C-alpha cells in the first residue's frame, strides 16, 4: 500500500523524478570520468619505469661505483647498521648502441630474483646469455631472447654478467644500487592511489637519513625519473581538481536526497497520521532514494566512461586510449552515490523529525584546520598534499560562511531597491538559507576553482610567453640529422645566408647524484640575454634552471662542482615545461673540454633576415634536417600549453554544471517547501515575461551570493596554485597576476550557471497550487 502510494506520487511528478536521476547521474559521471582520465595517465606514467626496477623505492649513487663499494655497503647492512633498508641489490643501467639500435641495458642479479613482473616467456629454452626485452626490440637483436617485459621502448634486461658483456664493461663495474626502504605509509598510500589516481605524488618522498660512508648519494625514484615525477605531479593536480569535482558531486547527491525527502514528506506526514511508524517510512524513503542512486550510478558509469574517452581524445590526440571500468571505479561511483544518498538522506530524515541544536564545535574545528592549513602553506616539506590540504580547508571554511552570510544579507534585504518584481527575485535568493546553503556552497566552490585556475593559467601564460619572447631570438632552428648539424659546428658564419649561427651541444650528467641536462654553447651577451643574463657568461660561470636550483638548493653566487670542475652560479632562468633540471655553461669553459667526448650536437639556431630563403637552401643541402621557423615554434608551444590545460577547463565546466543542477534542485525544493508567493503574483496578474524576469533576478541573486564568497576564495586558490603548488610540483614559480579578464570570465560563467538554474523551472506546474481552491 505504502509502496503503491509512493510509486503513484513519483509517477505523477515525472519531471522532478527525472531531474533527481539526471542530477545524481551527472554527479557520478564527473566522478567516473575524472577517475578514468587520471588512471589512464597514471598507467602511462608507470610505464616510464621498467617493471624490473619498479620495486625499488630509492637508489644509491657513487662516483666510479664498483662491486667493492657494493660489498662494503652490504657488509654494513648485514651488521644491522642500516635498519631502514629492507632490500638492496647492485644494478647496471646504461644506454648503448647494439646492432645499430639505441638500447638501454639493464643488468640485475637474476640469480637472486628472476624477472617476474609482467614478463612473458617466449623462448623454449632459457639462456643465461639471453635477455628480456620490451616489445619493440623483440625481433631486432641477434642475442637469444628469453621473454618480453613491460618497459619503455628500447629496454633490455639481462643478468648482470650478461649486461657487462653486452656493454663491454669491466666485470666489477656497477651503475648504482637499488634499495627498498621500509615505509610505514607505503601501503595506505597505495590503496589511496587506487581510489584517487595520482594521490601518491602529493607526498614528498621520504628521504631517511642513512648512516652511510662518505661518497654515497641517496636518490628517490622521483628524483631518478624526473619525467615520471613531472607527469605524476600533473596527475596529482588533475586528481585534486577531480577531488573538488567529487566534493561538488557529493553536495549535489546530498541535495537530491534532501529534495527527494521534501517531496515525499507531505505523503509521509499523512501516512504517519494514519498510524504508519516513522521507522517504516524511513525504510521506504531510503529504499526509494537508494534505488534512484543505483540507477544513477549505472547511468553515470556509462556516461563517465564516454566522457573520459572524449576528454583524453581531445587532450592527447592520436594516442591509443584504453579505459577499463575496474572494480575500484565502480566501487567509487556506486559507493559515492549510494552512501551519500543513504547517509545524507537518513540525516535529513532525522532533521525533519526534530530540530538539531547548533553547536560551536564545527567552527572551532574549522579554525584549527585553518591554522594547520596555514602551516602547510609555509612548510615546503608538506609537499603537494600540504598545498591541496590548504585548498580543501579553505573550501570547507568558505562553505561554512554561506548560511551566516545569507542570514546577514536577509537583514539588509529591505534596502534592495528597483522594480518590485526584481526585489522579490533577489530577496528570494537570500530568504531561505536552510534550503539553499548547501547548493550555494557547491556553486561558490566551483566558481572559486574556476577563478583560481583561470588566474593561475593566465599568469602562467604571461610568464610562459615572456619566456618564449626571450628564448625565441633566432629565426630558424635545425635539429635531427647529427652529421649535418656537426658541419655547422666548424663554421662561424655562412655570411650569405645567416647573420648568426649558434650551435648547441648537450649531455646528461649527474650532479650530486641527480640527473640533469648540461647545455654548452657560445655564451656571449646576445646568447646569455636569452636566459635573462645580460653579460657574456664567464668561463667558470654556470646558469641554472629554476628546477635545477630548487633541487640542488642553491642560488646565484653559490659554488657548484660539476664533473670535477668548480663553477660559480651566475644566474637562474625559468624553464617552464622542462622535464629535467638544466645547466648552461660557456663553450670556452673547462667543462666543455672535460666532457668533449660525450657532448652531442643537439641543435643549431640561425638568425637571418630572410628565413624562408635560408630554409630552402638548407633543405636542398641537408634533406634530413628538421627545420622549424621561430613563428611555428611559438605557435606550437602555445598550442601545447593550451592543450595541457584543456582537461582542467573541462573538469571545471563539469563542476560548474553539476553545481548549477544542484542549485536548480535546491530552488525547486525551496519552492516546494516555502510560500514564495509565486501563485499569488500570478493572481495579481504578473505575466510570464515578468515571471521569467523574476527567475533571472533570483538566479542573479544566487550568483551574486556565490560570487561574494568565490571571489576572495578564488584569489586565494590562485595564489596557492602559483606560489605553493607549482613550485612543489614542477619546481617553478609563477607570478600571480590578478587579471581582470580571468576574474570576469569565471564569474560570468558562474553567474550564467546560477541564472540557468533560476530559469530552468519546468517543474513549477508540478508543485501544486495553493490557495487557489
Amino acid at each position, binding site marked *: 500500500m505504502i509502496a503503491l502510494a509512493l510509486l503513484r506520487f513519483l509517477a505523477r511528478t515525472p519531471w522532478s523524478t527525472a531531474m533527481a536521476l539526471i542530477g545524481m547521474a551527472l554527479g557520478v559521471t564527473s566522478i567516473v570520468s575524472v577517475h578514468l582520465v587520471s588512471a589512464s595517465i597514471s598507467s602511462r606514467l608507470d610505464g616510464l619505469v621498467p617493471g624490473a626496477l619498479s620495486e625499488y623505492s630509492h637508489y644509491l649513487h657513487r662516483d666510479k661505483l664498483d662491486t667493492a663499494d657494493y660489498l662494503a655497503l652490504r657488509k654494513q647492512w648485514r651488521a644491522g647498521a642500516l635498519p631502514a633498508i629492507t632490500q638492496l641489490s647492485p644494478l647496471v643501467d646504461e644506454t648503448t648502441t647494439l646492432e645499430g639500435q639505441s638500447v638501454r641495458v639493464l643488468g640485475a642479479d637474476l640469480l637472486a630474483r628472476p624477472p617476474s613482473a609482467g614478463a612473458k616467456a617466449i623462448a623454449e629454452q632459457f639462456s643465461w646469455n639471453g635477455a628480456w626485452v620490451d616489445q619493440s626490440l623483440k625481433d631486432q637483436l641477434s642475442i637469444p631472447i628469453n621473454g618480453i617485459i613491460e618497459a619503455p621502448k628500447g629496454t633490455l634486461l639481462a643478468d648482470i654478467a650478461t649486461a657487462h658483456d653486452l656493454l663491454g664493461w669491466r666485470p666489477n663495474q656497477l651503475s648504482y644500487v637499488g634499495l627498498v626502504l621500509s615505509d610505514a605509509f607505503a601501503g595506505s598510500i597505495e590503496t589511496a592511489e587506487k581510489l584517487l589516481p595520482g594521490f601518491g605524488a602529493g607526498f614528498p618522498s621520504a628521504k631517511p637519513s642513512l648512516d652511510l660512508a662518505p661518497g654515497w648519494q641517496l636518490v628517490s625514484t622521483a628524483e631518478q625519473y624526473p619525467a615520471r615525477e613531472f607527469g605524476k605531479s600533473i596527475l596529482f593536480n588533475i586528481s585534486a581538481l577531480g577531488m573538488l569535482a567529487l566534493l561538488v558531486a557529493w553536495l549535489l547527491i546530498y541535495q537530491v536526497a534532501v529534495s527527494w525527502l521534501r517531496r515525499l514528506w507531505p505523503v509521509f506526514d499523512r501516512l504517519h497520521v494514519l498510524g504508519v511508524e516513522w521507522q517504516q517510512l524511513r525504510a521506504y524513503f531510503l529504499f526509494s532514494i537508494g534505488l534512484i542512486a543505483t540507477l544513477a550510478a549505472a547511468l553515470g558509469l556509462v556516461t563517465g566512461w564516454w566522457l573520459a574517452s572524449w576528454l583524453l581524445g581531445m587532450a592527447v590526440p592520436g594516442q591509443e586510449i584504453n579505459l577499463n571500468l575496474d572494480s575500484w571505479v565502480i566501487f567509487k561511483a556506486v559507493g559515492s552515490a549510494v552512501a551519500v544518498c543513504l547517509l545524507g538522506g537518513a540525516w535529513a530524515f532525522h532533521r525533519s523529525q526534530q530540530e538539531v541544536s547548533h553547536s560551536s564545535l564545527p567552527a572551532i574545528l574549522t579554525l584549527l584546520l585553518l591554522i594547520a592549513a596555514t602551516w602547510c602553506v609555509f612548510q615546503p616539506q608538506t609537499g603537494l598534499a600540504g598545498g591541496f590540504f590548504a585548498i580543501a580547508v579553505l573550501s570547507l571554511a568558505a562553505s561554512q560562511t554561506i548560511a551566516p552570510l545569507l542570514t546577514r544579507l536577509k537583514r539588509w534585504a529591505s534596502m534592495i531597491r528597483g522594480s518590485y518584481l526584481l*526585489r522579490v527575485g533577489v530577496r528570494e535568493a537570500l530568504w531561505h538559507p536552510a534550503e539553499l546553503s548547501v547548493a550555494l556552497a557547491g556553486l561558490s566552490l566551483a566558481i572559486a576553482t574556476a577563478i583560481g585556475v583561470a588566474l593561475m593559467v593566465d599568469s602562467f601564460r604571461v610568464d610562459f610567453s615572456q619566456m618564449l619572447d626571450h628564448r625565441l631570438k633566432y629565426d630558424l632552428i635545425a635539429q635531427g640529422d647529427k652529421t649535418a648539424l656537426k658541419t655547422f659546428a666548424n663554421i662561424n658564419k655562412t655570411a650569405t645566408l645567416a647573420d648568426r649561427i649558434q650551435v648547441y651541444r648537450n649531455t646528461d650528467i649527474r650532479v650530486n647524484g641527480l640527473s640533469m641536462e648540461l647545455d654548452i654553447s657560445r655564451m656571449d651577451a646576445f646568447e646569455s640575454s636569452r636566459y635573462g643574463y645580460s653579460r657574456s657568461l664567464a668561463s667558470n660561470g654556470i646558469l641554472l634552471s629554476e628546477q635545477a636550483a630548487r633541487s640542488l638548493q642553491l642560488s646565484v653566487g653559490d659554488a657548484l662542482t660539476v664533473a670535477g670542475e668548480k663553477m660559480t652560479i651566475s644566474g637562474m632562468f625559468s624553464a617552464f615545461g622542462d622535464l629535467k633540471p638544466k645547466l648552461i655553461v660557456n663553450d670556452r669553459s673547462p667543462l666543455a673540454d672535460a666532457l668533449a667526448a660525450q657532448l652531442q650536437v643537439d641543435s643549431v639556431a640561425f638568425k637571418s633576415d630572410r628565413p624562408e630563403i635560408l630554409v630552402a637552401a638548407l633543405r636542398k643541402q641537408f634533406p634530413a634536417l628538421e627545420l622549424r621557423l621561430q613563428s611555428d615554434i611559438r605557435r606550437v608551444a602555445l598550442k601545447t600549453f593550451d592543450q595541457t590545460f584543456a582537461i582542467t577547463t573541462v573538469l571545471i565546466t563539469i563542476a560548474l554544471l553539476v553545481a548549477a543542477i544542484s542549485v536548480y534542485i535546491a530552488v525547486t525544493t525551496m519552492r516546494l517547501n516555502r*510560500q514564495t*508567493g509565486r501563485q*499569488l503574483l500570478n*493572481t495579481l*496578474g504578473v*505575466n510570464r515575461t515578468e515571471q521569467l524576469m523574476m527567475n533571472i533576478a533570483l538566479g542573479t541573486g544566487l550568483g551574486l551570493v556565490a560570487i561574494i564568497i568565490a571571489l576572495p576564495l578564488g584569489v586565494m586558490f590562485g595564489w596557492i596554485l602559483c606560489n605553493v603548488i607549482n613550485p612543489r610540483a614542477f619546481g617553478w614559480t609563477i607570478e600571480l597576476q590578478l587579471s581582470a579578464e580571468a576574474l570576469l570570465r569565471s564569474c560570468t560563467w558562474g553567474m550564467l550557471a546560477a541564472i540557468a538554474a533560476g530559469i530552468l523551472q519546468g517543474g513549477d506546474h508540478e508543485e501544486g497550487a*495553493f*490557495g487557489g*481552491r
Partner: protein
Amino acid sequence: MTRPSALDVKNISKHYQDGSRQIDVIRDLSFSVAAGESLSVTGPSGSGKSTLLNLLAGLLELDGGDMTLALKDKTFSYRTADERSRTALRRQHIGYVYQFFNLVPTLTVLENVRLPARLNQQRELERHAATLLGEFGLSDRLHDFPETLSGGEQQRVAVARALLLKPPLLLADEPTGNLDAENSNHVADLLFSSCREQNISLVLATHSTEVAGMADTRLHLDTQLPLDTRSQDRQSP
C-alpha cells in the same frame, strides 16, 4: 434603487477532468452583481465556491456560458478572452483576497500594498497606499515583512492591497476563515464598507453565516455530486 449590473454571469459551467471521470462543479449558473453591491457565496465544502471565484478572476477557463464585467470604457467578455488578456484583466481591474498566504513574503507591508500600482505603472496611487494602511491601523508596520504580522493584520494588508486600484470587482475567498471572531468582524467590516463607499462590486465566498449575512445578496451553491468524490479542502470552523 436598481443599478445597472457591473458583473453579469449567464449559464456558466465548469468541470474538472480526473482521469477518465468528469466532475461537474458548476452547472448552468447565472447571477449578476451591480456596481457597489456585494454578493456572498455559500455552500458546503466542495460545492465550487473557490472554482467560481477563480473563474471570475480569469485563473480558470469557462467550459460553457459567458460572463461579462463592465469596465470604464468597455465591457470585458470572459468567453472570448485568451490567457493574456485575462491576466491583464486581473492585473488592472480585479482585487483578490485569499484565506491565507495573501502577501508576498519577500516584500514589506508597504511594498505589498503598492505592488498593484507598480505593476500597472500608476505611480500616483503609490502615495495612497500609506494612507490606506493608516486607515486600517497599520501605519507603524509599513516597513516590516509579512512574517512578523499577526493573521488579522496580514488580512487587513491584503484588503488594503485589493482596494488600492479601486477595481470594479473585488473577489474574496473566505477572507475571514482563519481569524477569530473579533478580527473576523473587523476585516469583514472593512471589506463591505470600503467596497460600498468606493462603488466596488464584491463577491465573497464564506462558510460564516454571519459574514454572509452582511452582503446585499446571497448565492447558495449546492453539492451536485455525492460527497465522497469531493476533496476535503481547507474546511473553516
